[in-house]
């Protein structure tokens, strides 16, 4: 996304700029824009607008009652806490992973880099049954963890595990390009001036990476809030305890309680919009930050 935004933000230069001023030389503007607008309107905007319309049609009292029902409130808590736990883990692990991929050379580095995309490529339902098999009470990880008294499957920790798996690439892929740009001469200068390794990391490296890290964190958190497929297998889906908001909306549909489903879905959509605005603001901040250093 960062790369994309950078590319878009770049103004046309040279002959292209003058061509635009003189009228378009490259053909196909009306056709391509027309196709894009029609498709975006019908496939993307129409359903979302309809959902907002249906949600708004409920009337405030009914809407409020649904979205603040005890079961819905419990699901927000479970979803937010699990997503926060997953994102906290991924912030540390994702940071280390990005650091190792950019800074160190070792056999298998390219393979490791490719493996980072596996959570994107693997269908969420497949991830769901795989993680459940691993963390079930007789699973590879579930059995030893249970021996230590930690129950993962069918608890909110299990939900966090599933969210962590599906959202990991966001943090790594957002940090990687910024780390690659980071000039190690700055660190060496700090070292020469007598700073210890930890001080250099904390006072020099980290401040530069923080904007990109925050952008990656908000992307990962947003993805975790909306995750469904990977979560429902491992969650146990017990109302009030291990039931995520997406599942509450799903169950309302299965119960043919469409107004309630619409209300919950608009809460999720609203949250997604907020996260989108936050992420974009952080990415803009990250880019400005990058600009300052050049």
């Amino acid at each position, binding site marked *: 996304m960062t790369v*994309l935004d950078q*590319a*878009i933000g*770049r103004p*046309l230069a040279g*002959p*292209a700029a003058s*061509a*635009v001023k003189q009228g378009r*030389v*490259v*053909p*196909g*503007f009306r*056709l*391509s*824009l027309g196709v*894009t607008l029609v*498709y*975006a309107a019908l*496939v*993307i905007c129409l*359903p979302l607008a*309809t*959902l907002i319309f*249906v949600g708004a049609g409920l009337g405030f009292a009914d809407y409020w009652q649904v979205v603040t029902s005890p079961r819905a409130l419990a699901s927000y808590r479970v979803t937010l806490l699990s997503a926060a736990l997953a994102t906290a883990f991924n912030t540390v692990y994702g940071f280390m992973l990005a650091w*190792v991929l950019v800074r*160190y050379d070792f056999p298998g580095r*390219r393979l*490791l880099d*490719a493996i980072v995309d*596996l*959570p994107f*490529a*693997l*269908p*969420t*339902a*497949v*991830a769901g*049954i*795989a993680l459940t*098999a*691993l963390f079930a009470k007789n699973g*590879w990880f579930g059995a030893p963890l249970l021996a230590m008294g930690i129950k993962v499957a069918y608890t909110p920790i299990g939900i966090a595990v599933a969210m962590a*798996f599906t959202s*990991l690439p966001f943090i790594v892929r957002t940090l990687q390009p910024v780390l690659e740009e980071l000039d190690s001469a700055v660190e060496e200068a700090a070292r020469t001036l007598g700073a210890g390794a930890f001080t250099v990391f904390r006072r020099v490296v980290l401040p530069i990476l923080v904007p990109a890290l925050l952008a990656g964190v908000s992307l990962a958190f*947003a993805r975790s809030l*909306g*995750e*469904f497929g990977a979560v429902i*297998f491992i969650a146990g889906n017990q109302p009030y305890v291990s039931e995520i908001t997406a599942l509450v909306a*799903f169950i309302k549909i299965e119960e043919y309680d*469409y107004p309630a489903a619409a209300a919950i879905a608009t809460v*999720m*959509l609203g949250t*997604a*919009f907020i*996260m*989108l605005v936050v992420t974009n603001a952080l990415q803009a901040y990250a880019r400005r930050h990058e600009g300052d250093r050049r």
Partner: protein
Amino acid sequence: MSMVAHSPPSAGPARRLVDGRRLIIGIVLLLTAIVIIAPVGVILIQAGSQGFGAFLGSLSTSDTRAAIGLSLVTALIVVPINTLFGIAAAWAIAKFRFPGRKLLLAIVELPFSVSPIVAGIAYLFVYGGQGLLGPFLDAHDLKIMFALPGIVLASMFVTAPFVARELIPLMTLQGNDDEEVAATLGAHGRQIFFRVTLPNIRWGLLYGIVLCNARVLGEFGAVSIVSGSIRGETNTLPLQIELLYHDYNTAGAFAAASVLTLVALVTLVVKLILEARIGEGH
């Protein structure tokens, strides 16, 4: 890692630096083995431990065969449509400047931010029996929800940005110069696209198509709302995995899951190859 733990305390700063490096690489590799490799491993091992005959048997039950067929048909419809949409969107957004361009880009990328469950519910309110177009569809005896068209539409929404997202940065960086030269020399729109632009963007385009395809085959949340999960009829492969799993048919579920895992692994290999090609192009 044990080497790090037992490194002599007398080691100098340089020595410690090397060990710190090894320690971090070791931790990252261990975590990656736990977090990413193990889930893929458990699927392949569970599927493989049945033996090849039983594995094929699990896949060839009529319901699973129907689910594989439905997923393939969905991909065959959705991927070409979203490829054309992605090319059109990238052409408009990357090659031209117009008011509302950034807004259009945001809308094209919107499906990435929307939970698939929300997408499925939104589609239900458009095409479902009580939805916006419900009465019209009923009157004309058109069935969209709980049938192939609904699955196709929901998959189209979820994967709409995939091709465009690969092409827009690529085409923006390449600029319009080649196309302008071709146009000045008298080439028509179609000639410009097929002989000038397409060769420039082919690897990025192919990469977008591969990603789109993997996501269509694997989509779960949105499809689970709009398909109605009718056994042997509207169950896609991921929905069939869920059904088998909840029927305690673990062997069948893991066999089906391993098929999608192989698709994911092939996608990654293709990605590695294409990235090298895209890199050569610059």
